[in-house]
């Protein structure tokens, strides 16, 4: 199985031609490696951190004190404690989950691009390239496979299936407190898998969310809320939020995805403001579902893929990403479907991605011997209004996270924030390539 996964990875890795600014061609042996500890955060939301439950630190946190002022060097201890469920911050412990992931990180740049390289050991002995599917039950197509924080997985009703991910969150100093408190500014009560999650009807009825046409709560910044506690339902007006964005008061959030972006050599491009918004244009993945017909939009092209669907036994042993321009055809409801047939919930396309959302179109990941190696290039000096432009001479606050072992939302391992300088003094100084 390892050899198959390796072959998958290598095939993906070598699929695209080498081009200028290709992160694969960077001589990474000349770039210093920084070891970053990523730990399980549980439900340590913005609100919890400012509550008396965050003993002896809630007031300091409100004042903007850095997490590392107290927790420096505690990543492993905290991660192991929280992931075990022996703490109020983890009401849904995942069996066998590790509390810490050691991330090897390298960063370099030249005149045109910034280059990142990530390496981390996965918990499982397979690459996290599978993602939830539509499963034919003999009558209709139903969602199959869920992230491991979902009750249906913990109850054993559904298998845990979700792609691996590597995420970067970036600020240029415009978001208050981000340099000290990092991603914790964006995780709030009410979000998915967090405390006090509201009913869908309540979200839809909220003025801000009605404007956004969203039905759940995702990452947002406190500056977009009207109350001191930054409650999910106390959103500012779209006009006020637009002003914050125009002033640069948002975070870049980019994710490399094992199923939904890696097969086409990309990472997505989002930003966090009043919600976790996609950059303008189109990211490489979209839902493979026709609401009217209650069926997938695409299925595998048997001529190119060898079959029109996959089975549960196939996943993680072979590529199962549905790529619009490579292995997909329009769904045929009369193709002789049998119970157990699986079609991916998402369709992926490099060709269809566009605009600012397509900025991360040079990312590649290879899984070998239990370790993901992801390389990623990002253009310097981007001018899109939804990007944090990286520039030579600039110092930026970064937060890193990885979703490992079939999980999503808060089920990630995260880093404390740190600064990266491109030709400037910082916690990590990028290597200039010649």
């Amino acid at each position: 199985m390892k050899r198959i996964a390796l072959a998958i990875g290598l095939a993906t890795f070598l699929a695209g031609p080498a081009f200028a600014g290709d992160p694969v061609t960077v001589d990474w042996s000349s770039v210093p490696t920084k070891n970053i500890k990523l730990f399980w955060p549980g439900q340590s939301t913005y609100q919890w951190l400012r509550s008396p439950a965050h003993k002896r630190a809630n007031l300091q946190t409100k004042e903007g004190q850095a997490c590392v002022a107290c927790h420096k060097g505690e990543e492993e201890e905290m991660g192991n404690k929280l992931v075990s469920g022996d703490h109020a911050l983890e009401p849904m412990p995942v069996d066998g989950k590790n509390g810490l992931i050691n991330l090897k990180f390298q960063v370099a740049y030249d005149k045109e691009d910034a280059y990142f390289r990530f390496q981390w050991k996965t918990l499982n002995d397979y690459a996290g390239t599978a993602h939830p599917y539509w499963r034919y039950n003999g009558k209709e197509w139903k969602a199959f496979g869920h992230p491991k924080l979902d009750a249906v997985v913990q109850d054993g009703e559904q298998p845990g299936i979700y792609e691996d991910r590597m995420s970067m969150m970036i600020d240029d100093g415009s978001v208050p407190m981000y340099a000290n408190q990092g991603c914790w500014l964006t995780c709030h009560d009410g979000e998915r898998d967090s405390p006090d999650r509201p009913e869908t009807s309540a979200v839809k009825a909220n003025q801000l969310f009605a404007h956004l046409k969203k039905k759940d709560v995702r990452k947002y910044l406190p500056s977009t809320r009207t109350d001191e506690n930054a409650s999910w339902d106390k959103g500012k007006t779209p006009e006020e939020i637009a002003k914050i964005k125009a002033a640069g008061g948002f975070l870049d959030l980019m994710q490399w995805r094992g199923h939904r972006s890696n097969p086409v050599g990309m990472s997505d491009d989002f930003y966090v403001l009043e919600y976790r918004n996609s950059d303008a244009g189109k990211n490489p993945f979209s839902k493979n579902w026709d609401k009217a017909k209650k069926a997938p939009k695409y299925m595998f092209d048997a001529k190119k893929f060898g079959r029109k669907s996959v089975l549960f036994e196939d996943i993680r042993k072979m590529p199962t990403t549905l790529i619009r321009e490579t292995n997909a055809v329009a769904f045929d409801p009369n193709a002789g479907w049998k119970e157990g047939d699986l079609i991916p919930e998402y369709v992926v396309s490099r060709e269809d991605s566009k605009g600012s959302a397509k900025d991360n179109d040079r990312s590649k990941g290879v899984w070998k011997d239990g370790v993901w190696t992801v390389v990623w290039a990002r253009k310097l000096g981007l001018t899109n209004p939804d990007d944090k432009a990286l520039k030579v001479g600039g110092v930026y606050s970064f937060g890193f996270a990885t979703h490992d072992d079939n999980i999503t939302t808060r089920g990630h391992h995260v880093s404390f924030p740190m600064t990266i300088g491109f030709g400037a003094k910082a916690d990590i100084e990028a290597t200039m390539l010649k």
Partner: protein
Amino acid sequence: MDIFDLLFKYRKAVNVALGVVAVLIVSWVIAYEPVTRNFVAQDALCNYCHLASEYNSDERLSATRPHLSVVDDKTSQATCVDCHLPEGWWNTTYAYTHFLSFTDLFGHMRDRDAERAGDWIPPRAAEAYRVRDAMFENDSNTCRSCHVEAEIRFKRERGVNAHKLALKEEKTCIECHNNLVHRPVDVREDAFKKASPSDGKEPKS
């Protein structure tokens, strides 16, 4: 025969009596503090007036673990007087003046000025605010009567980091260590603000 003749006639008995009185006084002086601290001012006596659910060491609502009075002895529990009765002979008197409500009587009266200003807060919270303000002013000397900074043995890295930062920023115990024992009272927003040289001065135009 006047009184002096009588005293002279029974001088041996008088000397014995004076000796006994002297011994009693000295004994009382010596025993005053330890007896008061260990036998008179017991938690049970305090709880005669103060609600056990708010104050009793066995029922401290906010305590997640005992406030040990002896390091490494998990059965030990600090008593009321460990924190509320300063050490010293004269300070022991406060126990008795407190019993007579001489010290706290006025402190428990309603804050009429605040009420009139529409800023009434519950007496329990007001009391907590007063105590915290006092501890902030006096560098948490209640804590320091037992805890010596240089001798604190940290169990976790966060303790080392936090205390290092607190020393650097000249913070005092109560700024972080609050709501440890009694019924929890939220720390008010404007607590623990150090005075600035510019406080009270008109801004320059």
